[in-house]
């Protein structure tokens, strides 16, 4: 179709907009159905729902994260498992676009407004599929006392130079009580770190049990 004619261009754009709208509606419908089943009273229905979540993908991420914080233990667990299913599905070879979309949604969930347990879980999801774009928001959590240990382990797992650079920067900025942790991550990634010895073999925990 030649696009020289303004009328044709307008019509084509309208068709794309209409089909995009239909697709978005369909996606929204799938997400709603998934969430509804995740909240179902039946353990079987919930299980089948989270098992099928992979194909629903990125559009379901935010909604599932919300359900993860709901009061019912098993519903929250099903939502978490659904999120993990999405992460494992989108990480398959050849699914780069799906993966990037999911990573984008997950990164949004690292925001301060999200509860710590959600952010901790999301960090570990990003450890499996996180891309260069996720490094900066993960690195920002190196200064968060509740999440910094998870954040440094997750950066350690992401195989990019950017992750190493983020750990190096994190080490410079880290308080004394966290420097050894980051130093360990850097050593694990093959970086020499001086002045911060490995303390893995230093015992620290005393027992109250006495020998006979």
């Amino acid at each position, binding site marked *: 179709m030649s696009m020289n004619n303004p009328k044709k261009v307008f019509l084509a754009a309208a068709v794309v907009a209409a089909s995009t709208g239909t697709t978005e509606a369909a996606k929204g419908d799938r997400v709603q159905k998934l969430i509804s089943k995740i909240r179902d009273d039946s*353990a*079987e229905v*919930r*299980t089948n729902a989270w*098992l099928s979540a*992979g194909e629903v993908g990125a559009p379901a991420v935010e909604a599932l994260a919300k359900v993860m914080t709901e009061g019912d*233990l*098993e519903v929250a*667990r099903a939502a978490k*498992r659904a999120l993990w299913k999405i992460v*494992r*599905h989108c*990480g*398959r*070879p050849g699914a780069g676009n799906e993966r990037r979309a999911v990573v984008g949604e997950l990164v949004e969930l690292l925001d301060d407004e999200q509860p710590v347990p959600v952010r*901790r879980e999301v960090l*570990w999801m990003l*450890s*499996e*599929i996180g891309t260069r774009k996720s490094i900066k928001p993960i690195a920002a959590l190196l200064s968060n006392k509740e999440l910094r*240990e*998870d954040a440094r*382990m*997750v950066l*350690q*797992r*992401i*195989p990019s130079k950017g992750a190493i650079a983020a750990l190096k920067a994190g080490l410079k900025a880290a308080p004394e009580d966290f420097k*050894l*942790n980051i130093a*360990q*991550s850097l050593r*694990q990634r093959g970086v020499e770190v001086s002045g911060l010895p*490995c*303390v*893995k*073999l*230093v*015992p*620290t*925990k*005393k*027992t*109250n*049990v*006495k*020998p*006979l």
Partner: protein
Amino acid sequence: MKRTNQLNRREFLAAAGAAVSVPYLIPSGVLAARGRGGANERITMAHIGVGGMGGYHLSDMVERRGRGEVNIAAVCDADEKRLANAVKTAGPGVDAYRDYRYILQRKDIDAVVIATPDHWHGAQMVHAAECGKHVYVEKPACCTIEEGKAMVAAAKKNNVSVQVGSQGRSQPEAYLAHRYLVNGNIGHISRVDCFHYPSPEDNNPVPDSDPPAELDWDLWLGPLRWRPYNRRYCPGSFRWFLESGGGQIRDRGAHVMSCAMWWMGADGTGPVTIEATGTPPKKGLWDSAVLMEVTYRFKNPDWTLTWTQMPRDKLPAAEERTGQEPGGKIVRPGYGAIYRGDKGKFIHWGGDGGTWAEKKAREWEPPAGAKDVYKSPGHKEDWFKGIKTGEKTIMNIEAAVGVANLCILGNLSYILGRKLEWDQAKQEIVGDEQAHRMMYRPQRHPYHL
């Protein structure tokens, strides 16, 4: 070997090295073994993890101490109640520790028995080796591929003897089965089908809570990422969550597939592809597959290994026995393997402390010229032999990591829902970046490799 006012073995060896002009003072076993215990010398032990199998090992070692085979210097556990019980079992003169690293610092301790939850095996074995201790570590050897590599490297670098607790290889009927199979009694074997009953579902899920006062939850978690305590994690139920025990495939797979790899002459080899499916628990904290099917394809030579967790009514029927057989009656008929050759098939049940071979293997009389196979003197005896002579143990760390890798790869394929390709030479998953990342799991500071 008492600690106080006596030369410990290492001090003695150092002195022996300096006194080379008077070799008649030195037991021959010491000189022959370059830093290992002399043939008649008692090994001084410590036990890390004293609940469950750890309790069994401690009681077993107490009996051995009574026979003059070993000394017991220390016991250790993150749970103070278990530790107090272990102190009672071990008796006077045995020190108690919460933190295993105090044990590793002691120069008088030659060897450690590690029977902690699975997520601790890798780090503790590596740390013990780095401190020059010989190690008996419970199976499965490791929870990740990279842990396994570190364990092999640490044992080699530090020249310590490691025995992994897949003790099925040391059972009397395992020897009979091995000998029967390698002599071609069922012909060329192209397929081994392992069977097992399902992993359990948690029918009593509970919310997270504070840990009990006696448990050091931080230490129990160790290398695992932090999470709140839940009483469905421990003590024994770590077995049913993927990050630690990994379900039946890692628990009993480390036994049944250990026999398969040994009897097939496949130690040191690995599959080229792994494909798993399974059904998850419908509720609760535990997440290991309830039912499961895994297919491992090996090349050069070509054969197939399968692992199936199936409903109990689908399991093969157990053989009738009188109890007079070398392994006695079959008391755990719910797992084992069927070996399929071009001239017939062979079945065994168990594969751990009980390994029961089908009658035809037990009754087979080797003709003149038949091949014989290694007959273990007992799993711990085989380890002691390794310590004293430097010979490889029957379930050495390389073999055990090979078996653990099968279990890990099966679970990874199940978790990811796709077929994996494995490069045995490079010891890595190929063509799947996410799976490749999952070969390794970062560990919490300071509980890391």
